[in-house]
């Protein structure tokens, strides 16, 4: 899932500025699961904004709604009837959600209430961790199902650097060394010898470095 975190309220208030008829749009998918931008958070943010402006002596209209997926035009279409007279949309979706709404309704100003953090999973209650950087060329078959690109602070491909100690990364004692995890996993799988092979230079052009990416399935195109 995509993991996101709500921005500071002061930053959101700055984005609101002089707008006074606002729609806050939650998303029912990833950001609901990571408790950042679902229906509940959309309602809370709406109240918080109304309150903040009331304290300043100004009444603003803030309405909240939540759609199933902000990252698909079909779902975003559903916003059309309630966008009339709105002068600002605050998306509580991930960065994709914000852009999908903006693309669908180009005449409207759409701003983000969240910072999109990473692709990951809930590790335990209240904790989310990164697992994938969408590099476009998966190597998990070679690394025991643990991703060195996202889990090694340096995205190394040939084992832990000299800063690995007691299973932790040099950047913090709270960060696992991704390569230590890979080592232990391969040991369990009886495949340690695979670490003796040199993993060649990676082709980063399939990653963000190749420019904005696109997947085209000719067989599925109409």
């Amino acid at each position, binding site marked *: 899932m995509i993991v996101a975190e709500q921005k500071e309220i002061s930053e959101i208030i700055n984005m609101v500025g002089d707008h006074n008829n606002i729609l806050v749009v939650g998303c029912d998918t990833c950001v609901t699961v990571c408790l950042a931008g679902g229906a509940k958070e959309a309602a809370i943010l709406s109240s918080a904004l109304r309150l903040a402006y009331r304290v300043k002596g100004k009444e603003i209209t803030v309405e909240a709604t939540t759609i199933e997926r902000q990252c698909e035009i079909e779902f975003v279409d559903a916003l059309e009837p309630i966008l009339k007279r709105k002068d600002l949309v605050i998306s509580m979706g991930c960065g994709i959600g914000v852009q999908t709404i903006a693309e669908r309704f180009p005449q409207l100003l759409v701003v983000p209430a969240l910072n999109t953090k990473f692709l990951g999973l809930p590790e335990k209650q209240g904790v989310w961790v990164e697992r994938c950087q969408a590099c476009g060329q998966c190597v998990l078959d070679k690394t025991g199902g643990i991703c060195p690109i996202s889990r090694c*602070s*340096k*995205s*190394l*491909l*040939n*084992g*832990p*650097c*000299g*800063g*690995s*100690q*007691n*299973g*932790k*990364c*040099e*950047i*913090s004692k709270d960060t696992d*060394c991704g390569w*230590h995890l890979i*080592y*232990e996993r391969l040991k369990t799988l009886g495949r340690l010898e695979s*670490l*003796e092979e*040199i*993993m*060649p*230079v*990676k082709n*980063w052009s399939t990653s963000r470095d190749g420019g904005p990416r696109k997947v085209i399935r000719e067989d599925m195109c109409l």
Partner: protein
Amino acid sequence: MKVGSRLEILLRQGKFVATAELGPPKSADLELIKKKASILRGYADAVNITDNQTAIVRVSSIAAGKIALDEGLEPIIQMTCRDKNRLAMQGDVLGAYILGLKNLLCLSGDHQSFGNHPQAKNVYDLDSIQLVNMVRDMRDKKVFECGEEIKNTKKSEILEPRMFIGVAANPFGDPFEFRVVRLAKKIKAGADFVQTQCIFDLPKFKRYMEMVTDQGLHEKVSILAGVMPVKSFRVLQYMKNNVAGMSIPDELIRRMKAAEDPKAEGVKICVEFIQQVREIPGIHGVHIMAVEWEAIVPSIVQQAGLYPRPDVQ
């Protein structure tokens, strides 16, 4: 002989070599580089020129290396994977070579979160092993990473940069058993010499070297044992608590703490380590890392019985 650098010649001759380190300044201070160079001249066979060490901006290792070369030192240019992609790295290898720099130490590099620009974007286009492989292919296969021959135009002659390639090895990182595997990978990738992380835990280092010699790795690569003189027990304590991948016995901290003259004791310990690592099979030299204490190197080299350094014809 691969490149004919002074370091390579001495190692081929079987000399026990001594290398030191010169940290470039955090300002455009040419005189400081010259001053540090003049301290080290004659006391080290080659001198590592660090590359934005601990992720703090400094004069570039190649520029400082050229100054050091002109001052009569034999530089080992350090290059980390943190700040440069393969284009910048290869351009710098070409540039370093035409400036007369012939030794290159390939490193992953400390993470930028340690330094003075923790908000920087890091690169890690390659890792250190891939860097070694690339520089070796530039020298031996005379090709760039992309496979193109190293020549200016189709009709020009090939003019490849020839570097004597070094790597770091940390016997004290984890997982311990993987450390020798990693060294073997670096050798397979093309490492000619190795400088180890500074050794404070001799028994652990000996266990590591046993694994190294069991596999015959010491016959494929020259291994220089890293030593570091410290000025006070606080330095050791700090490293023990804050620097990942270090093994520092409490006994050593106690010894430094009890010393009347801690600086002299630090030097004494360093000299003892040099003498002890020299006895370990498979060690071809020492690398003295006197971080921001270059002035002590001559005295350590002398006390360790390593002075004068051999001449190279």
